[in-house]
């Protein structure tokens, strides 16, 4: 699961005079936290094979986001859930839509999805709800804050280390059955400690470079009718969340004062020296 967000990096993002984000002027990029989800998916693919699909709900212009996601996860294909009815969805309506998309994917592929990876919070909404709510819709177990991950193909289980942040940082190991939804933590570090894994990784990279040339053929777009979704339950109409207003975070007032002095002004410089004198020893 991935999503496009405004590119908040310095020099790229554009705000209007009131401090509101100018979406039109700010390019859309892949949600930075999704990178960890994609890395975890890639690690699983490298170690266990299988196919990786990227899925996103968003406007038709998401092509670049999907391309970026596909390239970083060496994905096999991508699914874009997109139409007007889905627009302005909150996390709840998004989760319903995505979960339905996952079911459709299973039906089309004739295979069950074993693992879904979701990013931890988006850079624009910051809720962190979409992943967990999708798991709830799918009725799957979920492991969040994952920093390391191990799948047992025979037993059909996944074991994960999760970072539990409290007064002291703790790491706990949990295990659940497949299928499951995984939310990797930004601390997630993929590990390729076997030569064969690294060779596979290299193969996948080469294959993906070839594949993304034909990205248009690899992206499937589904609208709400394809997904057989009632417009009342998705998009704005299906969103119980109401954002009343957004308050800009006020700039912290500076607690220190500064006096500007022209170095050419001898008197003023003399005062500076006087001020410094006590520390000179």
């Amino acid at each position: 699961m991935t999503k496009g967000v405004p590119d908040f990096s310095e020099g790229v993002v554009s705000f209007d005079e009131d401090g509101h984000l100018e979406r039109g002027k700010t390019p859309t990029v892949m949600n930075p936290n999704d990178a960890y989800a994609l890395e975890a998916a890639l690690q699983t693919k490298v170690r266990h094979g299988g196919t990786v699909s990227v899925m996103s709900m968003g406007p038709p212009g998401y092509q670049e986001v999907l391309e970026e996601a596909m390239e970083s996860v060496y994905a096999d294909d991508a699914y874009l859930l997109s139409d007007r009815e889905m627009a302005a969805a909150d996390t709840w309506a998004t989760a319903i839509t995505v979960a339905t998309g996952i079911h459709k994917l299973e039906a089309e592929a004739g295979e069950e999805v074993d693992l879904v990876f979701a990013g931890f919070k988006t850079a624009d909404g910051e809720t962190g709800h979409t992943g967990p709510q999708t798991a709830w819709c799918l009725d799957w177990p979920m492991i969040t804050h994952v920093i390391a991950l191990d799948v047992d193909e025979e037993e059909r289980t996944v074991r994960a280390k999760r970072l539990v942040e409290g007064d002291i940082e703790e790491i706990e190991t949990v295990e659940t059955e497949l299928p499951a939804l995984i939310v990797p933590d930004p601390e997630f570090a993929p590990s390729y400690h076997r030569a064969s894994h690294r060779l596979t990784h290299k193969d996948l990279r080469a294959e993906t470079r070839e594949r993304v040339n034909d990205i248009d053929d690899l992206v499937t777009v589904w609208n709400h009718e394809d997904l057989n979704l009632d417009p009342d339950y998705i998009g704005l109409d299906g969103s119980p969340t109401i954002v009343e207003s957004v308050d800009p975070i006020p700039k912290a007032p500076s607690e220190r004062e500064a006096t500007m002095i022209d170095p050419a002004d001898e008197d003023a410089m003399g005062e500076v020296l006087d001020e410094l004198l006590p520390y000179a020893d």
Partner: protein
Amino acid sequence: MTDEYEHYEAIVVGAGPGGAAAAAALADRDVETLVLERGVEAGSKNVTGGLIYAEESAPYTIDDLFPDVRSEATDRPVTEYYLHNVAGNKVKTYDISGLHGHDTEWSDAVLRRKMDAWLADEVHERCRETGGGLLTDVRVNGLLREDGEIVGVTCDEIEPITADLIVAADGVNSELARDAGLMDWEDPEEWFQGVKAVVDLPADEIETRFDLPEGEGAAHLFSGDLFEGARGGGFVYTNDDSLSIGTVFHLDSIVDEQVEPHELLDALLTHPLLADWIGEDYEELEYSAKLVPDSKKVAHPSPHEDRLVLVGDAAGQMQAQGPIIKGMNHAVTAGALAAEAFVEARRDGDPHAAGERYERKLDSTGTMGKLRPRRYKIAAALGEPEPISGLVDSVVASPVGRLALGNRVSDKLLGRLYDSPFMAMMVPDTRTPYVTMPTVIAERLGEPVEGESHVEPPDLTERIGNLTYNTDVGNPHIVVEDESWEASGAAVWSCPVSARGFGGGCYREETVETNGSTERAVSLDTQPCVECGTCAVVADTHWEHPSGGKGVEFKQG
């Protein structure tokens, strides 16, 4: 215990010419081969002069193994070769294309990033077919042993791997050769140090300034009094659109003469002889350095142990044929011979016995004979002892010697001698051939060069600043074990990115107060290190290569 490890039929450590040749030759014989290279890309750690030779007498040349190498990965073929004897601004030049052409099928200038990266792609493709492949960013840090026998390798980044054949093609300062106890890094007399600048120059300018037909290249060597008495010389080679200008000196000479390698390079760069070639705008693309083994002294006569074989610089197989330096070609030959040996051993049901066969092949193909010539042993026995070489040196420099060297008869004779492969093989490692003779020749027979150099080489700060590093912060790959000036002081001037009185390099001179007395000592910051290997030999250090992908990254090489 080793059952749980991944196993490949062959592991090749290092993707320089030796490793690439070994891996290609193994893969072509259907041996499942894994190549491990520590650089971010093959070539990113490597430095050469350099001219790669395809020798007529060699059982394998690089284009035997990689038929497209010349069209895809090498630069200009060398069609002209000169040696310049220098004394002040007087220069006496000899054409040594005979020496160059002796036993030479072809010889091209190369830049290592370009060449090695191309070779590595080829190698990966061929090895992948066998179930192996080539991985970059992996540093092998030692040998895996079982019951005392070498069975595989251990790495910084990945789990240990076992193999039936382990090819150490990890270059000069081979950690594997050291681990196996086959090579040590003790004696400066056994090594040269090479330092190089790659200088930007458009292709058409190269052809105009060197007066070359389109697409062809020239090589120029320099010896004489321009290097503060250090034993060695300089070179200028033409690449496609740059020049490789460098120096190679006996490491013991750098230590003993207390010279700064970068200043010796600058002496060459700023010599008026080079002024017309370089022109007004000097743009240095890269400064680099690397140790070079002297095969006459260190080529291991029996470069194997258990399943391990050493090829190329790792085995000291770097031949200084007089002024001509041949390392890459021998590394290629050795790599392919090791592959041949393994396949034959495997066929005979004893894949772990490749080493003995490899050694026999080095001998029977005449490769070892080139690396450790018998003639040199005899000449060395006569020429090297200090009293004799000192005597020869003073005779050459004396009025008698000057007269003898400085007439037209000797001019002709010298021309022939310099161009003779036989003589080149016998050159003793004394000052006489490197400094005294060239200086006297130039003084007596040379013509003054007109013109004046406008070249202002960058200082060390700029040179370091222009290099790309991925520093492994908090994990220095070199640790000084004895910081006293006596033990490690030589590194301050010998290190190519350090200098006396320069605070921005690796090694610095420090004064420490102990019990009221002051002592000289050294301190080390590995950040600017170019991994040349010098301080592994001249200082008391615990020396390793940085982990995979860390440290310096050469773009030219």
